[in-house]
């Protein structure tokens, strides 16, 4: 029996593990893939204290930090969570794990574009992870689908390798933050293709191009590309807990200010929650808070001392 099992092996999950294990809790992290969303970022420049670090490297570092204080890690996919009377029982690859409390930190998974050819050509030129795959397109032509920060990050990375990078937008707008926007469109090998809709991704065994339709003129055209990076953000996959904790309409876990959920004993942090912003720094902060809230809950449940502050009653005054 673990004191706490953390589902998810990204920044939030391992930071929670770091703080839980430092508080002396018997801690297990179960995650499908190490690093989660941070994996999709080549270099993170806005994580406080680290001028520049790869997403994977950051998570690896936090993982080792958590392990040095006794946290355990198992790479597996949790397929079932059961709320038993005195514990939570998790199933992952036919093994069962029991814990007194849970921290949900499973983040998000990439959103599909949803056009013909996408499924068939996944891994054959259609990618959702520029960090992983951009180096494969040295001297080639790629298209970025998406207009936000992640798309800009992916685009910037691709410009280092590809001969030409097209950015496809349904409008003429690009919505990444100002700094990224500037950096991206300064590159000579970047071209914004405005007002286009993607109809199909073309290719037999490998992507060869895209079928596009101009939304202003209605004209169809073919764009020859070797790779397509789908950078449309992420969706939350909360099936395993959908009957246990309250989710919002996007299946994000609804949390209170202290990272607790609708189910006592279950806490959540990072990108899987309904907090509006998704950043490594926020995930780390929430991971720490979730672990401390969890510690407090576990202690109080057994009549021990939780976290205390200098006083208990807080009165609001003007």
């Amino acid at each position, binding site marked *: 029996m673990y004191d706490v099992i953390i589902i998810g092996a990204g*920044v939030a999950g*391992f*930071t929670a593990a*770091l*703080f839980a294990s*430092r508080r*002396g809790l018997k801690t297990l992290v179960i995650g499908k893939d190490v690093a989660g969303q941070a994996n999709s970022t080549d270099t993170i*420049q*806005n*994580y*406080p*204290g*680290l*001028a520049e*670090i790869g997403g994977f490297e*950051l998570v690896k*570092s*936090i993982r*080792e*930090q958590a392990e*040095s204080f006794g946290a355990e890690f198992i790479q597996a996919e949790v397929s079932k969570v059961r709320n038993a009377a005195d514990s939570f029982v998790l199933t992952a690859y036919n093994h069962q794990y029991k814990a007194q409390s849970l921290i949900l930190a499973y983040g998000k998974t990439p959103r599909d574009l949803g056009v013909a050819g996408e499924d068939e050509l996944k891994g054959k030129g259609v990618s959702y992870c520029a960090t992983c795959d951009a180096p494969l397109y040295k001297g080639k032509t790629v298209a970025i689908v998406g207009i936000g920060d992640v798309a800009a990050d992916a685009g910037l990375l691709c410009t280092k390798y590809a001969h030409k990078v097209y950015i496809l937008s349904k409008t003429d707008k690009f919505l990444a*933050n*100002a*700094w*990224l926007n*500037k950096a991206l469109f300064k590159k000579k090998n970047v071209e914004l293709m405005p007002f286009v809709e993607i109809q199909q991704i073309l290719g037999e065994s490998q992507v060869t191009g895209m079928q596009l339709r101009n939304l202003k003129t209605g004209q169809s055209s073919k764009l020859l590309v070797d790779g397509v990076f789908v950078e449309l953000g992420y969706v939350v996959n909360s099936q395993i807990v959908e009957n246990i904790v309250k989710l919002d309409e996007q299946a994000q876990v609804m949390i209170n200010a*202290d990272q607790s959920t609708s189910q006592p004993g279950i806490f959540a942090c990072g990108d899987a929650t309904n*907090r*509006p*912003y998704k*950043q490594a*720094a*926020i*995930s*780390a*902060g*929430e*991971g*720490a*808070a979730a672990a*401390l809230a969890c510690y407090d809950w576990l202690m109080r449940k057994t009549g*021990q*001392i939780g*976290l*205390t*502050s*200098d*006083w*208990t*009653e*807080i*009165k*609001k*005054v*003007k």
Partner: protein
Amino acid sequence: MSEEIKKVIIIGSGPAGLTAAIYAARADLKPVVIAGLTFGGQLMLTTEVENFPGFREGIMGPDLMNNMVAQAERFGAEIIYEDATAVDFSKKPFKVQVGEKQYLSESIIIATGASSLWLGLPSEEKFRGKGVSSCATCDGFFFRDKEIIVVGGGDAAMEEALYLTKFVKKVTLLNRSEKLRASKIMADRALANPKITILYNTEVDEFLGTDHLTGAKLKNNVTGEISELAVEGAFIAIGHKPNTEIFHGKIDLDAKGYIVPTDGTKTNVNGVFVAGDVRDFRYRQAVTAAGMGCMASLDAEKYLHMDQG
């Protein structure tokens, strides 16, 4: 005086303020950070920080803060190493007074943090970070199997003492009066713990040692008797105070002077945001402050977009 209106002014330069600065600068908001004469916040008073995620070997507190300053400056934040002396949030643009100089801004992020209360002994200052600490969560690990003292008689002192019993060999808790001020349940637990010994009517007269703390000279304030106790660690747990002197009457504070957030990092003044220990009396961790600083910057950015249509 030039009356240029800034987009965002960040008051404070601990993890919350500087993370806000990194994000605001990357969003091209050209933030001005009123960092204070002593910048960097409480981490400047610590030695090795083991629990900031991403530093598996640990990092010295001051190094971490210097990293954050460099990072914020690299993206274009302007850092002013002076104290904010007054604010006016009654109308926009907001005003921040820094000595003789007045700054105007469309939005404000308050991240002035909190300060541990210290005993105020010269020897205490000498051994800060060298055995004398105010944060058991941060530093408890360094005192495995050692003997230490905890100074204080409130709930926080009991919590620190009990937490530290997980690591240390023995805790001597010094209480200034003849009765603990902690809640009964907390006091009972401390009294029941075999690793904790409580000395009543006892104060620290002086901390002893050469490079590192090796003991404390104790004074019984009833009998006047002086004694010496060999300890390698001393935790001062007599409370914290939020650094909100200049905000009294300008923004909603709670009874202890902490800023009251309304929703996320928002406050009762539209356009003024808050992050870090100045609002958080519960977790008080560098990384939770950093996370909130990031959120405050994103909230300010959103506010500026909305405000300008």
